[in-house]
């Protein structure tokens, strides 16, 4: 078990977001870990609009290669994202491909004024030019290591190393 205190990170992230003075902010969590975190941030930021969720299954760039992922949760996004500042939340930022997919999907719903990317962990290893605006913690991991957010009751980070 990684000894990160997720709650302390969330407090700091919420503060960082608040300091940005966003206009009519709208939280969108990426399934599944991102949704848990978005709910936590929602409480801390005391936002009025409910948390929205996005499932990037239909926008993944590996569909041709691996096919449709099972257990699609579906996206629940409002149609009135125009003129809003979107806060996009994910648990781990790695290659950047998930974020690309999520942004493509968001723009099929509407054109928000801005998107702020918030992640709990930036583990490096980017394959696309995507960076987070708010980061809970940077943890450099090698390719054979796997990091996962466990939840939703008590949020903890778990790092495992694959035998090579």
């Amino acid at each position, binding site marked *: 078990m990684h000894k990160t205190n997720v709650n302390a990170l969330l407090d700091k992230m919420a503060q960082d977001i608040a300091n940005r003075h966003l206009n009519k902010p709208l939280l969108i969590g990426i399934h599944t870990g991102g949704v848990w975190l978005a709910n936590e941030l929602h409480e801390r930021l005391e936002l009025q609009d409910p948390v929205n969720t996005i*499932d990037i299954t*239909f926008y993944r760039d590996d569909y*041709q290669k691996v*096919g449709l992922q*099972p*257990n*699609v949760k579906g*996206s629940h996004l409002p149609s009135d994202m125009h003129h809003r500042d979107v806060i996009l939340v994910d648990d781990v930022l790695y290659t950047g491909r998930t974020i690309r997919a999520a942004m*493509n999907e968001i723009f*099929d719903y509407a054109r928000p004024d801005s998107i702020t990317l918030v992640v709990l962990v930036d583990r490096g290893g980017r394959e696309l030019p995507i960076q987070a605006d708010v980061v809970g913690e940077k943890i450099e991991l090698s390719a054979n290591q796997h990091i996962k957010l466990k939840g939703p009751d008590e949020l903890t980070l778990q790092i495992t190393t694959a035998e090579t």
Partner: protein
Amino acid sequence: MNFTDIQFDNKGRLRHFLTIEDIPRDTLIQILDTAESFISFGQREIRKAPLLRGKTVVNLFFEPSTRTRTTFEIAAKRLSADVINLDAKRMSTIKGETLLDTVSTIEAMKTDMFVVRDAASGSAFLIAQHVSPEVRIINAGDGRHAHPTQAMLDMFTIRQYKKEFADLSVAIVGDILHSRVARSQIHALKILGVKDIRVVGPKTLIPTAIEKLGASSYHRLETGIENVDVVMMLRLQLERMEGQLIPSEQEYFHLYGLTEEKLKLAKDDVIVMHPGPMNRGLEIASSVADGEHSVILAQVTNGIAIRMSVMATIMGGSR
């Protein structure tokens, strides 16, 4: 080789959608769940997902069809595919080209998926055997054999209103003999765990082998729909009937037509379904078709989501 082997690749993934038979329960549930996520696409600003971008889907219909062909076309377009509609009856088959020659010709134009409807049972299966491995086939109705996407949209609609399959009583009413829809429905209901599956109709329209599929036969509508949760009406396929299979149309409506009065024998919250097109006043009274228990238009809407789900499921992972 039988119908079911060819539907799967060597990793067990669904590659063609030809018949419900032998598709595992989990795969059917997966298709229903995925369709659920596609339902919301109708409300979005851009009603498209990029899954089939750059792919070409050919609607190859040797029999006329409006709603099935249209919903397949919309489904493919919402997945960003290019769609070509071929009213095949008018083209080369008239000039003597065989079915497989027609398919080969279109395949040579680098197409990725065929949605096939044909009056002969087994056509989609024949085509699936014939095309190169990366090409996908969906059966949109072959003769009396199967119409699997219709059955899946019916299952989706049932789940929308009823939730748990295991506890349901379902009656399929009418012309079972000529119905590819009924056969696919029975397979799907059985795999999804429905225990009480009834087929209802005159003896002349119920094949004797139907009980082997796991349905029980009823020859009186009143007993057949007693206490059921779902009534699935079938279209009386007058154009396929040879000889005297039903008495007069008035007599048929009197005995087997679904009226408000007869529907009272079913459960209070019964839903009434029909795959369309309906013969109003023959198998179903207008007041029932348009009444509070009817979910017939929901079936049409759901048909798009289900067809998107089936296409996305069989097309993925091809490289």
